């Protein structure tokens, strides 16, 4: 033990020597200046689009031509154009924009999908974590395999299925947000279940046992013991599901046909498509508003995210 201690202490001796040594050995990368340089370059690249969008949103000039990093005058003109579209000159251009509808639709779809995904995933993960039944291992592996065939690949079939379901129950057929959320529920199990199960496994089973001894049913253990203790991972799964749904374009565009039922990606792409010149200002305003919910959620849940990212990949 003592020899090991000596070996461990050894580097402490040459270290001051190196620090006192004259410059020639490591002149270039000495100090932290290059770290700051790299960081500043990275930050400039990261913020480049953000700065331009923010300035375009608040500038008086609605077009992309002559856009600058710092607008000469700050106005809310572009927000007005986007939300009301009632300025005489641009009435025609913005008449078909239903930005507020798209925003509300996106929020309805994303929050419902996130909450239901967490719920369905947690229910299944609880069974996989706390019960031993035949087909349990197969079930987990099957969920992993099914991830290789994302819904995006089966988009034609999903379209045809929703078309047929809509023939029986029109409320969940094509062109309905309810139908869209139900389709997204098809992807609720899968990676989420693995992530949640991994976390549930770390919650001591003794807690369940003591609750069971006190007469709790499995459902009561689930709601009263396991879920409250798993709040962090529930938040992370919910956030990922929210962001994924918010970004989803292909399935929405296949299932939703009328502008009133569009979500933000579909609506905003149609709004800006080939119209970069004329629509840039209001579009930038729309981008700022659309980014708010996700950025807020992200800030709120940030401390859980890094652990969620690595836990998902490494622990499976």
């Amino acid at each position, binding site marked *: 033990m003592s020899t090991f201690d000596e070996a461990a202490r050894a580097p402490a001796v040459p270290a001051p020597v190196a620090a006192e040594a004259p410059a020639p050995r490591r002149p270039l990368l000495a100090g932290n200046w290059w770290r700051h340089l790299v960081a500043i370059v990275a930050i400039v690249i990261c913020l480049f689009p953000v700065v331009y969008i923010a300035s375009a949103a608040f500038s008086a000039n609605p077009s992309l031509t002559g856009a600058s990093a710092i607008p000469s005058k700050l106005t809310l003109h572009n927000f007005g154009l986007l939300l009301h579209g009632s300025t005489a000159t641009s009435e025609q251009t913005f008449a078909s924009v239903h930005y507020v509808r798209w925003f509300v639709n996106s929020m309805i779809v994303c929050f419902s999908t996130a909450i239901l995904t967490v719920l369905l*995933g947690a229910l299944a993960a609880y069974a996989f974590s706390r019960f031993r039944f035949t087909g349990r291992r197969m079930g987990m592996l099957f969920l992993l395999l099914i991830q290789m065939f994302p819904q995006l690949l089966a988009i*034609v079939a999903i379209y045809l299925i929703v078309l047929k379901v809509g023939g029986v129950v029109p409320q969940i057929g094509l062109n309905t947000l309810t139908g869209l959320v139900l389709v997204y529920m098809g992807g609720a199990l899968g990676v989420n279940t693995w992530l949640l199960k991994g976390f549930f496994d770390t919650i001591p089973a003794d807690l369940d046992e003591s609750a069971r001894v006190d007469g709790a049913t499995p459902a009561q253990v689930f709601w009263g013991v396991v879920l409250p203790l798993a709040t962090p991972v529930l938040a992370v799964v919910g956030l990922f599901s929210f962001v994924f749904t918010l970004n989803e374009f292909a399935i929405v565009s296949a299932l939703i046909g009328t502008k009133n039922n569009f979500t933000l990606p579909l609506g905003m792409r149609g709004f800006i498509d080939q119209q970069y010149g004329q629509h840039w200002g209001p579009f930038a305003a729309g981008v700022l508003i659309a980014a708010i919910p996700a950025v807020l959620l992200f800030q709120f849940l940030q401390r859980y995210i890094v652990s969620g990212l690595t836990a998902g990949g490494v622990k499976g």
Partner: protein
Amino acid sequence: MSTTAAPTPTPTQATFKPSYLARAIAAFSGWPGLVVKVAFLGVVNALAVWAATVLADQSNWPAFGVLVLFTLLIDLIYLVPRRPGLIPLKFIVPGTVFLIAFQIAPILYTVNVAFTNYSTGHIISKSGAITAIKENSLQPAQSGTTYAMAAARDKNGDLVLILQDSTSGKTYVGTKKGLTPIPRAAVTLKAGAITGATGYTLVPVKELAAIGQQLTDFHVPIGENAAIQPQGFDTAVPLQPTLRYDPERGVFVRISDGAVFRDNGLGSFVSSSKEELEPGWATHVGFRNFSRAIHDPLIRKPFLRVLIWTFVFAGSTVFLSFALGLFLAITLDKPGLRFQRGYRSIMVIPYAIPSFLSLLVWGGLLNDDFGVVNNLFHVHIPWLFDPWMAKVSVILVSTWLTVPYFFLVAMGALQAIPKELVEAAKVDGGGAFQIFRRVTLPLLLVATAPLLIASFAFNFNNFNNIYLLTGGGPATNDQPIAGATDILISYTYKLAFATGKGNDYALASSIAIVIFFIVATVSGLSFWRTKALESVR
């Protein structure tokens, strides 16, 4: 297997103060949970009963049976008191129902469609196609007979045609069932035009335009296969078939020259001179879609180009993002560095912004005419409109989007590497680069390999990064559908839904299956190597 020791919040604490969220969730263990459960079961059953009546109405008995079976099963699982065997099912069933309906069923359906010719012109069944071909073959008869016509409604409000033979002067009422003579006196005529008919209300002139399509499709059958069809709003002509269907031989015969059109086994009636009758029908065609991708040069060329580009796109995005993310993480991973936290929180901003927004914004910034990038540097580079520049732009923007993710991952992984290992390497006289090369990097790679693979699989199917930035374009010469930056998934999407170019659902589905096998192979191999599956206890 190394663990990136996720700093998971410890569930048990000395002074336990649950958050509001936790307490709200816990409330469901009492009566609110029971209420929700009962309400949920009620909704499921109500929906099922509703759907069952509709299905029964449509005489769709297989679907009816499946529905009733599943509903009874769900009720059984939730309402039968405590059977230990059923308890896990209670928790697994809700997610599984959706998994089956919107993930497994679509997969099976996709596999089925991949072996058919389901596409524009091959949508309907064979009997439907035969009826449609018969109708399409109707042509104005040579006789030259015409009818004066007026659209009218009968007592029930159904659309009928009041007709007068322009040569014989006889008057008729034409319905979708056939032609009925009516007395000449019942019809009012003014200068050869019908202006009224007893027992019928004529459709007012100003409303005619609104029912134009209805009129064009209105066929009054007369005799075997012939019909009377409106031409415009006030005349109608008799039509005669140009093709005759022979049900015994199952072939169409052209009446004018006797040419025979046979079922070619691929969902079409084709003559010996390769003439094809429209429409065709949907039928199974075996591996034809897959062999088309190999043998048909019109499909093989774009398919191969898209396949290679998909690998390049996914591979270079992951490689560049990981390299840059790791570089940034190492640069900032220095104890006591000033502004460290500030730098970090700014660098993850691109990760917090929904990517669809960033992609649309980059599309504007890189616009060659008005784009900020070109204006800023006073250049005129066609970032998104030159086939090669568009490829570079797509990779750069994808990297911009992905670096923060790998920055976060690499930071987590770096902190998990035991400091003693690095110290030991220093003692042994390793230089900074050598330590990175031989100690830090291998450990990092072990920890992040599954994430790299997952990211590759994700980018392999990263529809948004392509479609929202370039729409798959710019267009190329060799093929109208696949653009220069199309990856397999966006190519599939365009095959299926591209407007104006037909919908080739079958080819799209078979490419989806090819994508599945590629991704499954890549992921399977790497998961097998990293033995991530061992953690299934």
